[in-house]
């Protein structure tokens, strides 16, 4: 059951003292979560519908929206620190939906040294932050990597960013900062299919939430214009003929072995949908916890879970969005099904308690850390019991 909003800290609030009731927020919200009360004229936020895309936050002209994640203050603080650390006057802002890391930036923008900032949707960045970076922090060029407009996980985040940057560039040019000081590129990750490995089982065609897969002339064919890169087909392909660009199985395997080596016992590994938890920009994890962020819970591969156990991980937590919040339609639901089946198999060798699936949403920022703490305590208890034996 989802916790009710009155007991929980919520991630987004409207500050009535500042609100001018202009309705920009409600006109931009992709989820109909903000409405004007017809009687009082007040703007009301229905937190249960909110997906915390923060388009309202970045658009509010009165600064009347309070948000826990990536607010102007924490973004500025991060940029000041990162500017020192990375010693560069180029800033790269990337949506997490585009890539798991900054490896492809050099090829895309032709820069090798930059201040990196990765956020769930670039639509949440207020223009103030960009202006501040250029005007007071000595940033000379801003490079923004956003998802392709139609593939934005928050529907409008990418297209709104495009319009904002166009306007901002015109303004900055008039102020003498040069032409196109902010550069925008778009990319979306897609499935990669090895036709020669396909066994024509039809799983991808049946399970793809976007009808991107078809079984044709003896092998699965993918319409990449329809593929949204959730990775569900990859986890369900019995022939292991599919990969998700930038989230290849081997890449995740390498992360598992690297992280398991740097952890202290009892080791807890979290496979986390990157839309279910928004970590703070300075997220610090204890040495016994490590996280692998994935493009959707659907990309959680049972083989990776078993591999982690083999690498000496003591407990594995899967953090997914609640079914109704899933950014890839059926991803959360199918992931839960796969994990339940795997737990059943693991129960035959007594390992089922070491694997836990939880649904968490960024609108309630405390739920993930509460789930993690609870799971940790469970694993620690069984670990110390085992050690005593």
């Amino acid at each position, binding site marked *: 059951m989802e916790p009710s909003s009155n007991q929980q800290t919520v991630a987004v609030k409207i500050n009535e003292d500042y609100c001018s009731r202009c309705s920009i927020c409600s006109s931009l919200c992709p989820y109909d979560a903000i409405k004007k009360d017809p009687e009082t004229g007040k703007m009301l936020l229905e937190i249960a519908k909110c997906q915390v895309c923060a388009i309202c936050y970045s658009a509010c002209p009165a600064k009347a929206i309070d948000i826990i994640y990536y607010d102007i203050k924490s973004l500025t603080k991060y940029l000041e620190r990162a500017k020192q650390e990375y010693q560069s006057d180029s800033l790269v802002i990337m949506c997490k939906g585009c890539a798991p890391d900054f490896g492809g930036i050099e090829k895309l923008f032709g820069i090798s040294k930059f201040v990196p900032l990765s956020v769930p949707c670039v639509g949440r960045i207020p223009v103030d932050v960009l202006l501040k970076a250029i005007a007071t922090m000595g940033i000379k060029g801003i490079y923004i990597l956003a998802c392709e407009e139609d593939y934005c996980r928050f529907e409008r985040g990418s297209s709104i960013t495009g319009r904002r940057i166009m306007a901002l560039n015109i303004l900055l040019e008039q102020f003498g900062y040069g032409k196109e000081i902010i550069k925008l590129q778009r990319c979306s990750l897609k499935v990669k299919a090895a036709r020669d490995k396909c*066994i024509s089982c039809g799983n991808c065609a*049946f399970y793809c939430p976007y009808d991107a897969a078809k079984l044709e002339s003896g092998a699965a064919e993918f319409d990449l214009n329809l593929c949204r890169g959730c990775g569900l087909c990859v986890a369900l392909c*019995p*022939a292991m003929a599919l990969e998700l660009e930038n989230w290849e199985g081997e890449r995740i395997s390498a992360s598992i072995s690297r992280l398991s080596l740097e952890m202290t016992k009892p080791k807890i590994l979290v496979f986390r949908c990157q839309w279910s938890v928004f970590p703070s920009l300075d997220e610090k994890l204890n040495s016994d916890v490590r996280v692998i962020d994935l493009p959707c819970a659907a990309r959680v591969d049972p083989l990776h879970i078993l591999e982690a*156990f*083999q690498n000496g991980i003591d407990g594995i937590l899967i953090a997914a969005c609640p079914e109704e919040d899933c950014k890839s339609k059926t991803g959360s639901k199918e992931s839960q099904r796969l994990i339940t089946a795997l737990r059943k*198999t693991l129960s035959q*060798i007594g390992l089922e308690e070491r694997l836990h699936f939880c649904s968490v949403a960024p609108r309630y920022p405390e739920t993930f850390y509460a789930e993690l703490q609870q799971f940790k305590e469970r694993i620690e208890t069984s670990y110390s019991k085992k050690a005593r034996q």
Partner: protein
Amino acid sequence: MIITAQKPLDEILDFLSPYSNILIAGCDGCTQPPRGLREAKTLSQLIELGGRLRGKNFNLEVITMPKQCDSYLALTTLKPQTEDVEAILSLGCGLGVQTIAQVLPDLLVFPAQNTLFIGMEAREEGTFEERCAACGDCILALTGGICPVTRCAKGLLNGPCGGSSNGKCEVDPEKDCAWDLIIKRLEKLGRLSVLEEIRPPRNFWQVARPGRVKQL
């Protein structure tokens, strides 16, 4: 498709425990759910984890092939991989296991699956349903494409029996009465009269076991 269910891991670990070098062979053929490379790797990891808990370390290799029930494919795919292998664990159906046993007579082969039936995959319901008994004398032309041999609990050819109630079977009220389905379907197609024709008794000779057909 041949529907199979994985054996309990304990049972698999029990028969593998005297051996160390095991080749796990997947089958990309008609077994459902597909028992290809992913299943073979998954099982390999489970055996390793389960073995470790029993204090046993296995040396496991994984391979898959288009279909295990083809003597030529089974031999040519597996033979080159069998050096130092003590036993093969097959993810194929009963046919796969037996084909391997036949083409590699000096090697031990164990089944990782229980073979259940010939069935269809009802994707929307997420179930596998038995639909064909391989009886050798198909009467689907007379029964509107619904098989009473498998779907009627009593295998009646002249049903329904007195236990049919509200379209459900008296043996298992969860299941549809096959003859109720047949009659409703024939009625809809305007072909109910085919059931009134007198037919000779069923040819049971066709199901003499073991079956063998010579290819032309």
